């Protein structure tokens, strides 16, 4: 292999060679530049390969023919090789990306670029602290030059600010170097380690002065105003270098000199890093300029990695895996986003909407924000998992809270941005996207996927990118140009085949969920046949969600469970965002979900206590003092997904604004993920007590209140899909209540609920959605009288609401029957009463669906409507058949589950005697109920028909309105504000307290950010003051802590 010294030689040599060229041979000069960077990348890759794949040990390069400490030595080990590759590839891609600019500025600019990359490589390789200083100065000078490669005239002032700060840094660094030299007698890192330089030793100040300038190179808050200005005004391809390459080199420099100072300085790094991470993410919330936002995000990410560097003793062997995972995620994603920003004309975040003309770029953007947010399958996900586990195991809960808080803020602005990209209006003069820029961006995105695969292989867990389900979903990215109908067939076939292949391994509970997810999902997908065209993006998202769900129910280890959880969250987010007005709702969905996921990861980490490959069944063995906390964290996570009261505000919008065939997926199927989590939690952990309170008792109350409030709020909706969405909140409340009863019938009821809710909610969402598609509105008071035009839809909704409301003869009644039996088994009377009350409230809203949509007067503009399209009706008919079958033969699904539950709750099971089901309190005979109810119905119906003969037919318009057209026409509609009297009576229950609460938090954060960022006045001298204040302040804090 070529000696690494040639990295320096090639790059520097090429820079000199450029000087010999004629001014006009710019194409040649650019070719030489690209060639040199590519050669550097190749050499780095060669070393990385030798180190990683063949296990070679680090190589030393002795300069001046003498061994250290008498001459400078360079070293290339595994981390060095990886970072060198990162730096050279970033340099290469940036050089290609900004070719036009480089050609315009000529060979000098290219030489400066080469020098910058060479200097960064030097920082990585050298073991000499003065050499680090020299290379940093070279970086400073070349950065000063590269900033000017921008069309933005403000780059000039950003450049001078940077140089001013660089001067201060260099003074501090020199003083620090000379005093550490005095204290240790060497400039070579490997010879400088002495206890005196440990925090609190005699050389504390000397090492502090060495460390702080390097920290400032990482642009920590508050000494980072200059960096943000550069990010905002420089050429984005250069910002990519500054963020990905320079940031990595500076981090590695800090990591190296930590060898000198020792672990006692770790907390300093962690403190500085976390402060930057949290504050920069807050400040980014109000940022509207894309590049400055990326600047804030860069600063934040670097801070997070710095915090990890500070914990490297604690992390031990996994340090490189974690820090590397975060670093690669940050570097690739940030470089990619900067490249993308060059393809966008305007500088507002909303201008990024133009990018969605090219699905490839949308894919790239999604890749980048998933990488930054630490979502699977990217390296940051594995790193986050390991990091949180290590920190929780050593009791550093505070750090975990800060990290997760910062991470949710970051996810907030990143996913909001994605929402802008997908939903905001595009500009009128889009122009063409330059092919070179698109290619470079795609290369970055692919590099991200490659890194994802590598980290999966390194992780010690099953590589997520080798999971069949996930690969099947991702495969749809490759065939996304196929027509939608073909992809739909492939999707349905795939899901059924997957089920066929895996069902033998399911236990009865998994079987229920498996059938609902895979077979049920396939049934809903039948409705998707109504879509024409390509429907780009739908299938990868939907299948990602289904893959996550399928992986969730078979997960054995906590890691698999959590990975599946994140996958289904991400997939469903993309799916929900497809709805026309879904932008804000999808955002709140993903934020609540991610926050819930953070609770889950913290819970698992707390339970695992550092144990690798923690099995979910081991939750049963968690130490008694930790168990309640683990329970609470996990329960919060799962109940966020089922939208319990207080955490529910994301659900109505997300479910109601989704596309017609998406609503049933996210309501009928996705919600069950949360229930499955609760089932797993309760079946393994039982009911731990905290301060003498049984936690399942708390859950019981939460379930009861959710059922009551969900139903109440549903009753006052005007929007039919929102009504169904609120109804889901209530229904999930019932299920949680049933599970929290912790008895046999409660669980059986909850599982029956899982099936029932899937069937009737999917059915209702499809029929209401289908009607809404025809009428063009979801508001019920704008409909009416549709029974004659859409009799089939009417029939489906009728069956659906009979099933939901739990009256005989349909399966809802069975659920109720078991439910009341379960309650009789339990001692908790008060929440029981609440549950009883919420029952009748369900009638209130269900009645409105039939009444407002199908009965009453037909609207004039609806006169020519027909039934919803054939394919939307197909699954509905299937559901009607299923409902009737399930009503007559509930045993076919439940008997096995009943037996299975005997393992957990031996008492209180049901007796299954043919078609007769008996409990301790009574019996239920589904067939007889069907017959009797049918008989009564038929009798009444005949009677009505007989009476009806005497009725006089009146045409719709044989009445006359003599008044003017009312100002708000809906006020004259009988279905508008239907339950106004009830609203008057219980208005206090309907106050949007949760919405206000979460809104208040969001506003407070934004206001803080708006206020705090004024701190960056833009004045270079203020920035110098910030820097010195940071140095002095940090030192004073250190003195104080000692």
């Amino acid at each position: 292999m070529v000696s690494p010294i040639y990295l320096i030689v090639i790059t520097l040599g090429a820079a000199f060679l450029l000087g010999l060229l004629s001014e006009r041979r710019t194409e040649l000069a650019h070719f030489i530049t690209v060639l040199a960077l590519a050669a550097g990348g190749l050499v780095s890759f060669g070393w990385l390969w030798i180190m990683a794949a063949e296990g070679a040990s680090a190589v030393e390069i002795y300069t001046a023919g003498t061994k250290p400490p008498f001459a400078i030595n360079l070293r290339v080990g595994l981390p060095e090789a990886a970072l060198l590759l990162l730096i050279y590839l970033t340099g290469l891609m940036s050089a290609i990306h900004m070719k036009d600019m480089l050609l315009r500025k000529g060979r000098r600019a290219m030489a400066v670029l080469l020098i910058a990359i060479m200097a960064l490589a030097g920082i990585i390789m050298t073991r000499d602290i003065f050499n680090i200083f020299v290379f940093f100065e070279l970086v400073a000078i070349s950065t000063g030059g590269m900033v000017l490669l921008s069309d933005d005239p403000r780059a000039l002032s950003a450049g001078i600010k940077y140089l001013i700060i660089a001067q201060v840094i260099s003074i501090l660094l020199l003083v620090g170097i000379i005093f550490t030299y005095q204290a240790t007698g060497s400039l070579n890192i490997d010879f400088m380690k002495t206890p005196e330089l440990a925090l609190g030793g005699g050389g504390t100040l000397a090492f502090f002065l060495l460390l702080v300038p390097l920290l400032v190179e990482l642009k920590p808050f508050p000494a980072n105003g200059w960096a943000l200005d550069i990010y905002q005004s420089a050429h984005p391809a250069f910002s990519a270098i500054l963020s990905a390459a320079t940031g990595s080199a500076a981090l590695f420099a800090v990591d190296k000199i930590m060898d000198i100072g020792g672990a006692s300085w770790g907390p300093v790094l962690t403190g500085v890093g976390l402060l930057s991470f949290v504050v920069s993410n807050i400040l980014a919330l109000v940022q509207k300029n894309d590049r400055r936002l990326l600047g804030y995000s860069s600063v934040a990410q670097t801070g997070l990695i710095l915090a990890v560097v500070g914990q490297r003793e604690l992390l031990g062997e996994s340090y490189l895996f974690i820090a590397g995972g975060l670093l690669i995620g940050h570097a690739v994603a940030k470089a990619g986003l900067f490249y993308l920003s060059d393809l966008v004309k305007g500088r507002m975040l909303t201008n990024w909407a133009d990018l969605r003309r090219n699905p490839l770029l949308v894919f790239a953007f999604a890749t980048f924000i998933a990488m930054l947010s630490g979502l699977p399958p990217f390296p940051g996900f594995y790193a986050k998992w390991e990091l949180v586990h290590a920190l929780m195991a050593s009791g550093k809960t505070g750090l975990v809270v800060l990290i997760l808080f910062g991470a949710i803020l970051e996810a907030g602005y990143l996913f909001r941005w994605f929402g802008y990209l997908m939903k905001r209006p595009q500009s009128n003069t889009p122009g063409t996207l330059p092919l070179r820029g698109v290619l470079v961006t795609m290369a970055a995105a692919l590099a991200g996927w490659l890194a994802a695969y590598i980290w999966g292989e390194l992780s010690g867990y099953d590589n997520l990118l080798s999971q069949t389900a996930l690969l099947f979903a991702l495969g749809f990215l490759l065939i996304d140009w196929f027509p939608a109908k073909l992809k739909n067939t492939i999707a349905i076939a795939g899901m059924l085949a997957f089920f066929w292949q895996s069902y033998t391994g399911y236990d009865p509970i998994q079987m229920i969920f498996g059938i609902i997810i895979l077979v049920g999902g396939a049934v809903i997908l039948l409705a998707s046949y109504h879509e024409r065209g390509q429907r780009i993006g739908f299938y990868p998202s939907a299948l990602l969600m289904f893959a996550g769900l399928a992986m969730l129910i078979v997960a054995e280890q906590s890691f698999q469970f959590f990975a599946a959880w994140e996958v289904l969250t991400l997939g469903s987010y993309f799916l929900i965002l497809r709805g026309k007005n879904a932008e804000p709702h999808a955002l709140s969905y993903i934020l609540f979900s991610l926050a819930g996921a953070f609770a889950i990861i913290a819970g698992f980490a707390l339970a695992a206590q550092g144990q690798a490959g923690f099995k979910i069944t081991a939750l049963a063995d968690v130490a008694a003092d930790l168990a309640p906390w683990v329970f609470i964290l996990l329960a919060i996570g799962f109940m966020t997904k089922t939208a319990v009261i207080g955490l529910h505000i994301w659900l109505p919008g997300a479910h109601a604004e989704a596309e017609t065939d998406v609503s049933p997926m996210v309501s009928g199927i996705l919600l069950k993920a949360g229930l499955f989590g609760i089932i797993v939690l309760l079946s393994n952990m039982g009911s731990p007590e905290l301060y003498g309170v049984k936690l399942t008792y708390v859950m019981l109350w939460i379930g009861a209140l959710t059922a009551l409030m969900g139903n109440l709020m549903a009753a006052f909706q005007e929007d039919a899909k929102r009504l169904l969405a609120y109804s889901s909140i209530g229904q999930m409340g019932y299920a949680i209540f049933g599970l929290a009863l912790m008895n046999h019938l409660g669980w059986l009821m909850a599982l029956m609920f899982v099936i029932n809710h899937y069937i009737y909610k999917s059915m209702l969402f499809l029929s209401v959605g289908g009607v809404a598609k025809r009428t063009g509105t979801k508001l019920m008071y704008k409909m009416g009288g549709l029974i004659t035009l859409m009799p089939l839809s009417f029939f489906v909704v009728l069956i659906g609401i009979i099933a939901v409301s739990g009256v005989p003869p349909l399966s809802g009644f069975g659920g109720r029957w078991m439910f009341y039996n379960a309650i009789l088994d339990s001692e908790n009377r008060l929440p029981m009463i609440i549950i009883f009350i919420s029952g009748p409230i369900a009638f209130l809203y269900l009645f409105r669906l039939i009444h407002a949509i199908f009965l009453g007067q037909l609207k004039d503009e609806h006169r020519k409507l027909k039934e919803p399209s054939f394919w939307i009706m197909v699954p509905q008919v299937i559901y009607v058949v299923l409902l009737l079958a399930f009503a007559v033969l509930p045993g076919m699904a439940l008997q096995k589950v009943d037996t299975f539950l005997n393992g957990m709750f031996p008492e209180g099971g049901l007796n299954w005697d043919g078609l007769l089901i008996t409990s301790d309190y009574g019996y239920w005979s589904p067939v007889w109920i069907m017959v009797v109810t049918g008989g009564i119905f038929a009798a009444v119906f005949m009677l009505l028909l007989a009476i009806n003969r005497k009725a006089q037919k009146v045409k719709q318009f044989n009445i006359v309105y003599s008044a003017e057209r009312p100002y708000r026409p809906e006020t004259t509609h009988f279905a508008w504000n239907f339950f106004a009297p009830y609203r008057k009576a219980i208005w206090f229950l309907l106050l949007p307290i949760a919405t206000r609460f979460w809104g208040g938090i969001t506003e407070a954060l934004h206001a803080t950010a708006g206020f705090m960022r004024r701190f960056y006045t833009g004045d270079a001298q203020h920035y110098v003051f910030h820097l010195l204040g940071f140095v002095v302040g940090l030192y004073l804090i250190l003195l104080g802590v000692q």
Partner: protein
Amino acid sequence: MTLQNIAMSTGFILILIGLYGAMTHKNILRMIVGFTIAGTGTNLVLIAVGYLPGRAAPILNAAVPIETASATIVDPVPQALVLTAIVIGLGVTALMLAFAYKIHATKGTLDISKLTDLKW
């Protein structure tokens, strides 16, 4: 007070004077002068650290035979560092002057407090 202490204190005083100048003067040229002064102070500090009283300059010739050099010369490393630092300082100063020139050419001012179009 030894020569070493005088040199080191002078160095630190120069650094402080330089930084004070750079932070109080709005004119970019004056700021550059401030940083140059501070840079000189830094170099002085470096030299002072390597100085050993009563020893000769680290130049090996007839007066300083190579065998006894380690006991008779001052530490050469800081001096080498200073040489490098001076060269780098020259480069950075030149670049800053170039920036100052360009800023004056495009914006017609050298007042640093007027260059606040990037902020927040």
